[in-house]
């Protein structure tokens, strides 16, 4: 496979995952605001913007953090490189360039997702925004379905690799923005607002019922952290991303008989995480731990680019 094609596939994986994550973030924030009082709404949007690293780009627009502006910035803005529109546009550009490496089904899913948002000029009201992100999510599910039916070969692995690297990145940033909610046990917590926030967090990663299955009972902030970081049953947990990264890189190695820096970094990360428990993470400082994870994830991303000659 051409190195350029590989790079395009990897980035399609990343952008589609990012578009999906931003969709869920918007959806959950709208829901959170519907539950809470309106005075908190601007704060929720500011926090959503910082999760996707779009707060600075937003401030540069000089707009006020109202619901409409924030929703527009996250869904449709061309100035925000992580808006759903930007992600889908870049995914589609890469898909056009790597067209021969994609199945018709995958191409159609990406193209349709792009067509869903291409002509939108305003996100409309909260309900219209929910409808918009719903249809984007539906097309992205089509993409994921197509991925599952693709030939298990390099092309498929690069798409997957992009999405698991991106997923690790976005979940870690999500947790970091909300880390003050996940303080150690014993601290006074548990007001209605906190509860809503935890629910929101779980909803973003589509894991509300899964949490109840695993832990039963009431929401405990440190269990939510455990769940999203260290439980490999949870497909969007950080450890699940770490495991999948190792597995995907091994598939390449099995095919080519060669390994590289990316394999070593990914395995080392997984080994360390397997020995961790959530108390140790909290001891180290959740914020610091998450930042170390983000740095390591970026290093693996770099190593992948080098190993497969993306440059």
């Amino acid at each position, binding site marked *: 496979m*051409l*190195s*350029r094609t590989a790079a395009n596939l990897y980035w399609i994986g990343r952008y589609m995952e990012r578009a999906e994550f931003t969709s869920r973030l918007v959806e959950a924030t709208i829901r959170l605001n519907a539950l809470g009082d309106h005075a908190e709404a601007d704060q929720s949007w500011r926090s959503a913007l910082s999760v996707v690293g779009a707060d600075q780009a937003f401030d540069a627009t000089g707009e006020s953090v109202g619901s409409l502006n924030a929703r527009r910035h996250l869904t449709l803005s061309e100035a925000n490189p992580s808006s759903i529109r930007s992600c889908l546009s870049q995914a589609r550009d890469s898909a*056009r360039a790597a067209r021969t490496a994609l199945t018709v089904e995958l191409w159609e899913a990406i*193209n349709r997702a792009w067509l869903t948002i291409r002509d939108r000029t305003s996100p409309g009201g909260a309900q219209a925004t929910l409808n918009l992100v719903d249809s984007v999510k539906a097309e992205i599910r089509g993409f994921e379905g197509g991925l599952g039916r693709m030939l298990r070969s390099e092309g498929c692995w690069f798409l997957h690799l992009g999405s698991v690297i991106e997923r690790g990145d976005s979940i870690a940033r999500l947790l970091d923005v909300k880390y003050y909610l996940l303080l150690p046990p014993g601290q006074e917590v548990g007001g209605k607002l906190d509860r809503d926030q935890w629910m929101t967090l779980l909803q973003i990663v589509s894991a509300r019922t899964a949490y109840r299955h695993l832990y039963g009972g009431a929401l405990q902030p440190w269990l939510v952290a455990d769940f999203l970081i260290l439980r490999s049953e949870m497909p969007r947990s950080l450890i699940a991303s770490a495991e999948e990264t190792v597995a995907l890189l091994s598939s390449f190695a099995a095919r080519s008989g060669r390994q590289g820096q990316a394999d070593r970094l990914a395995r080392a990360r997984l080994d360390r995480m397997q020995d961790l428990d959530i108390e140790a993470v909290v001891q180290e400082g959740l914020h610091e731990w998450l930042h170390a994870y983000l740095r390591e994830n970026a290093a693996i991303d770099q190593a992948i680019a080098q190993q497969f000659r993306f440059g």
Partner: protein
Amino acid sequence: MAEAKAFDELWGDGGADTARPGLEALASWLSEIPAAELDRRQLAAEAAFRSLGITFAVYGKEDASERIIPFDIIPRIFTAAEWARLSAGLEQRVRAINAFIDDVYGAQRIIADGVIPADIVLGNAQYCIAVAGARAPHGVYAHICGIDLVRTGADEFFVLEDNVRTPSGVSYMLENREAMLRLSPELFDLLEVEPVDSYPEVLRETLLSTAPDGATTPTAVLLTPGHFNSAFYEHSFLADNMGIELVEGTDLEVDDDIVWMRTIHGRVRVDVIYRRIDDAFLDPLVFRADSALGIPGLMAAYLAGNVSLANAPGTGIADDKAIYSYMPEIVRYYADEEPILPNVETWRCREPKALSFVLEHLEELVVKLVDGSGGYGMLIGPTATRKEIAKFRAALEAEPERYIAQPTLALSTVPTFTERGIAPRHVDFRPFVLTGAHGVTIVPGGLTRVALTKGSLVVNSSQGGGTKDSFVLAPAGAR
């Protein structure tokens, strides 16, 4: 004007209600299918093309940068006998074209024998000095030719243009057939249509057959300018269907006159490049230095005989419209027989007598740039405004050698589904002729372009034309 007396390919000259022999089945299908059903199928075809991303970019129109070419659901039909004559004529012409290119970059016999003036060849902007004296692997230059044909009567076919640089449009031949099979399967029960789906396979065989000697399991690639190019869809479609890599210039490198492509497992040697970029952009060391699309050193690798380029650099000399006017002489010279397919009558404005005739008859003629394509830089006298005619008159007087003129032909029409029901629209036809080391192959079909505007003669997709499927009928009793 033309439309009143145009030959209709279904109804013949009369415009009566009896179809030409062999096409009765299409006529009865047309009379039985309700307009609403045709409308439904037409919409379904457009939706399918859009969702598959079969698009065509139009230069100079930003908002329309990814337009689908309108597809018309009523096919255009050639009988087996018509096709037999066409394909014999095409093969004869393309063999002559390859012989001509081989000659003008080699012994130049045709010039020495005084068949064609030296200056029109050697002084031509399309004459590629970089390859003079170099013979292409296996002597094949124009591997893929798109020969534009027009028709004015039951037996009157003319060659309008020879596209021998990087002709495009073949993906429409294949996708239009897919659309027809999906949307009007019953037509294929009514008519014995020759299949076209072997094209990618034949093209692949053609390309690989021209690999330099010594390449035992040759690797072919398709070189595209990238996904912003207007024909990118076709590039990816063909690469995909041939099972070869679709590469951009940056994917290739030349080392010691060998071409390599960069893959995730290291570099892989390339033997044949089906290039869909113009000569000028192939190699910044030889042609345009500002080309970011090409590969430095590619021409050296080609001249060293280490890689085959399809089409070969320099084929533009046979694509030039001034050379076109000599094509009947060229065919006679190399084939030693009469051309089966005639040219359209052509006035070379470089010749003073022709120029004065053209200037006197601008209102009746089509004037073209010798090196123009895509319907750009063209005057259609009968429909032009006085201002346009004045502009061309000035241009002709200033640089007559840049122009040729041809009569306005009454292009044949084919019934077409329009907003106001079924109506005749003018068409042309581009079959694709493949030449490999072992001879010429023509897949029975091609691209029919249709001028969707009533009375219009401009079929170019860049100028709002559409396409139709082109059925070639099997000889009676063949199946």
